[in-house]
Each structure stands twice: as C-alpha cells, then as structure tokens.
C-alpha cells in the first residue's frame, strides 16, 4: 500500500482532523496515482472502521486489541510500528493532534524513519511530495522533503485540509492483528478530567474576532461580543486595547502576545501595524473592516470592507445568526 491514513478514534466516529488527513491523502493518491488505505483501532474500532468504510479508499484495516482500548503512548507506538512493518506503506498520514505528538515520534525512532509534522500543505515536485510547514512561530514557511528509506510519517495541522473534502466511496474492511503482550504498556493512565482554564488560549480557536483602536471606547466592546457568540468565536485584540485595560492580556495578539492562525480572522478597526500582523498573518482567511481605506491591514486581508465597524458589527451579528438558523 502506498498511503495509510491512521484514524484517531472519537468514540467510534472519525476525529475531524483524521478526516482532514484523509482528504490530504486522497489528494496525494490522485495526484501521484497511489493507493490509499485507512487504519482503525482503539475501543469501538469496529464502529470506526464502519464509518471509515464510507469513504473512498482501497481498504480499511481494523486492528482490535484490548491493549489498545485506551490510549497509551507505549501501546500506540508499538501498534503502529508493527502495522508499518507488516503493511509497509510509503506514507502515513495523521492529524497533528496532541495524541499523535505524544506517540508518533517514537515510531520515527523505532523505525528510523522521518516524521514531517504540522504540515500545512503539500505539492508534487519532481515526482515526489514537498511538504510545507510554518517555522519561527509561523513567521516564515519551510519546504521539507523526505529522504526516507522506508515510510514517511506526516501529520497535518488543523484545518490545513478540509474534512468535507474527504471523498465518499466504499472501502472494504480487513481485520489485522499484531503481536503485543501486556508488558508492552508500562504506563498507567487515570481518568481524564476538565479544569478551569486560566487565561484564554487563542491558538486553538477556529474563528477569532479581533478588535483594535477603531472600537473607540470600552463601552463598545459588548457589541462585539454578540458577533463573537453568533460565530462561536474567540475574542482577541491588538495591543492598544489591552494596554488600555479593556481586555485581559491573554487576548492580545501580536509579536508580544499570542500567535494565531485560525481558519477565520476578523480584524475589526485594526490598522495592521507590524507588531500585530506578525501574530496573525498565518490565518487561513482574513476579513478586515476599517474606516481607513489606506490601513495596511487591507494588504494582507482576503476580504476587506471600508466602513464604520460600529455600524457594521451589529448588522453582521444578526446576519450571521440568521444564516446559522
């Protein structure tokens, strides 16, 4: 097999980021005329495999083993290593999740094969894929090629590819098994739990609504909250808003604040000064609304509106709410 997409198990359904990896894998398969399979494992592996079977692929490998019912770094790295030794794929695609970061490097070590992580896109050059990732905190990009003598492990950044681009189809399920005894798993994990988060982490937000000086005064911020709620977004800001004490420091985006690359970044009343821009220019889509047609933010925006944000935001919130209903 050429491409193996290893699926992360979300209680039997396919994790969104695995679908994104699948979309990427299907794209590579079609561009280079390669075969693609998927791997389902973990608790409710059967359900996962069934769901996977509804997508276009050669087959879905189903690995069921009680030692893999719950995630462990030992278990999963052992399992993937064995699967790769058996099936010998050229590429292994996964989503760049915390889980993958936790165990996949160990597979890289065991098999002495490269793991190209956090990829945002790939293209074919000279008959081989060239992967792109962001470096220096998304300030720059880098092209990476693999010189692997075996497989190449690849993980994709959230929303690099679109989960709804994964092509539907039909894939047969094939059960596989590996040698693994209980001593392989040396760690003991307890039940996961939730905690009060301290300080907003904007880096995981899919949509960020960000305000700048154009908001005028602190009293206008609630207007923006309505839009934030309608979009299911997070609120961010440029530096002056935090300096004035209108928002807490963890909302600041920029060179001395958070560095974000969400799917959609709405820059409202933000001029686009360089210290702010370096913190968000990796965003996949940038919408800028500013009174000043010369504002530098328009240079990096995908969509721009020259206008008064105080007038536009309330109407936009309504329109968004309506579109969702």
């Amino acid at each position: 097999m050429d491409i193996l997409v290893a699926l992360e198990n979300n209680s039997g359904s396919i994790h969104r980021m695995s679908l994104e990896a699948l979309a990427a894998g299907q794209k590579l398969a079609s561009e280079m005329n390669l075969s693609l399979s998927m791997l389902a494992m973990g608790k409710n592996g059967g359900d996962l495999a069934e769901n996977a079977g509804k997508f276009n692929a050669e087959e879905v490998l189903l690995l069921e083993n009680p030692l893999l019912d719950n995630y462990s770094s030992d278990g999963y790295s052992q399992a993937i290593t064995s699967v790769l030794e058996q099936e010998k794929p050229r590429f292994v695609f996964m989503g760049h999740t915390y889980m993958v970061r936790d165990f996949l490097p160990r597979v890289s070590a065991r098999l002495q094969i490269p793991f190209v992580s956090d990829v945002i896109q790939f293209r074919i050059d000279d008959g081989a894929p060239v992967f792109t990732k962001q470096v220096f905190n998304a300030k720059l990009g880098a092209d990476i090629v693999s010189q692997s003598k075996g497989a190449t492990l690849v993980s994709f950044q959230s929303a690099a590819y679109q989960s709804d681009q994964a092509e539907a189809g039909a894939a047969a399920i094939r059960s596989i098994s590996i040698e693994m005894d209980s001593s392989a798993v040396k760690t003991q994990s307890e039940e996961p739990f939730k905690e009060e988060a301290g300080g907003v982490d904007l880096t995981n937000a899919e949509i960020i609504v960000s305000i700048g000086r154009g908001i005028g005064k602190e009293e206008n911020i609630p207007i923006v909250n309505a839009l934030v709620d309608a979009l299911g977004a997070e609120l961010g800001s440029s530096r002056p808003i935090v300096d004035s004490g209108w928002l807490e420091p963890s909302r600041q985006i920029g060179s001395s604040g958070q560095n974000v690359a969400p799917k959609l970044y709405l820059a409202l009343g933000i001029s686009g000064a360089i210290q702010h821009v370096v913190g968000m220019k990796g965003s996949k889509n940038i919408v800028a609304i500013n009174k000043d047609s010369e504002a530098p933010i328009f240079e990096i925006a995908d969509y721009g509106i020259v206008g008064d944000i105080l007038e536009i935001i309330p109407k936009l919130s309504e329109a968004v709410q309506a579109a969702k209903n």
Partner: protein
Amino acid sequence: MKIGVLIKQVPGEESPLRVAPDQGWIDETSVNFETNESDSYALEEGLQIREKNGDGEVVVISMGPEGRTQKVIREALAKGADRSIHITEEGPPETDPLRTAGVFAKALQEEQFDLILSGLQSLDLGTGQTGVILGELLGMSSATLVMETEVGENSIRVKRELESGWFQWVTLPLPACLSIQSGINQPRYPSLKGIMGAKKKEIKPLPKAEIIESNVNQSITRVYSMQKAKQTEMITGDIDQQINRLVEAMRTEIKVL
C-alpha cells in the same frame, strides 16, 4: 536523582527575522538569541524536583555554535544547574529531529539519567519531536505536554494536557523522558551568587561532528516569507450589500457557517 535538561537557543520572540539570501535558513546577523521558552520551564521543573528530593544533579545539555550556546548554558548554570554539556556545532543547524535526537542519544548514553526533561517544542522548527525520540532511543518511558510532576519511588506521576481543556494523570516507570509545557511553574531569576558560581561549573564541550551519524531523513529545501499573493476582495456597495456578500463568503468560501 540524576536529571538532564535539554535547552535550545532560539531567536528572541521580539526579533524581526529575515530569510538568508540562499533561502537555506534565516539570516542570523542582528538576531538576538535566547533560551527557548518551554526549555526554561523544563529547567525550572528539574531544579524544583532536585530541591524536593533533597539531593541529585541537574545537568543541562545544549547543541549549537559558540557564543549563543554558552550564553544559554551559563544562564542555566546561574539558575542552579550543576554542570553542563555543550555539543558544539558548526555550520548550518540540524533540521532533522531524528538526527538531532541521535546526536543527543550518543552524547548522553553513559550519563544514565533518571529523568530527561525538555521543552515541548522550540520556537524555530517547532517539531516537538526531539525529546520524545531521544527518550525512545535511550529506552526511557515518555510523556508529553506535562503540566505537573510527582516523583515516586521508581516512577513518576505526571499531569498531561489534553485538547480542549482536558487533563489526565499518567504514571510512568523511571527512567522517564518528559516534554514540559510552558506555564507549569514560575522560572526563577538567577541570583548574583548564582551568576558568580556559574563560572566555576563545568561546560563540557563535545563536537557534534564526532558523534553524528550520516543519514539525513528529512531536510528543509527552502525557507521563505509566507506572503500569499493576496488578492484582496474589497467588498463594495451599501452596508446591507456588503454584509450580505461577507456572510455569503463566510458560508460558501471560508466555510465557517
């Protein structure tokens, strides 16, 4: 307890960066280098574990050219690390984490650390792999995104950060290799006496060239500025028209609705 801490020198967060003319890496002229942020947290965790334990040794290891590597090592020694190893590197930096970890594994094999701590990922490449690979090469147990540690008899219990605000405690046997998340503790400031004492502590040089294996498994072919050739669509019309177009774009093109 013997604790190793890996630290890396990276460009300061505030430093503007430019691509080198050959696009192989960044132009390092005028760039100020400092200790990678999550490595500072890893060092602090190592120092606190040694303090809680009552005894032990904290060794810092860093790979890089003269000058800036000495700077981050001295800072770590001033904060309380006991000794250090400087893997001296000349020429372009390593960008293949498998190779980098291989170098560290060779350099540290004989040390037989009980714990190796590293920052979650570095500000430059940000692969977040080197520590995990190193642990595997040295036959240590491993955990990433560690937010809290509790050392036991022959094991260590760590709190791992999961996605979306979830956490999980995991117990691992020693020796263990952990990658530490920023915010786990409050890194201390070096004291005057610490700075004075750092001068007397060992910095053992170890040339990378002497221990590196030859195979490169992945390489960076080009580094560049990510300015997309932006076609900005300026949405015109009256306010209602503008909003309609924007919502349409959000629905069909950006796909967030």
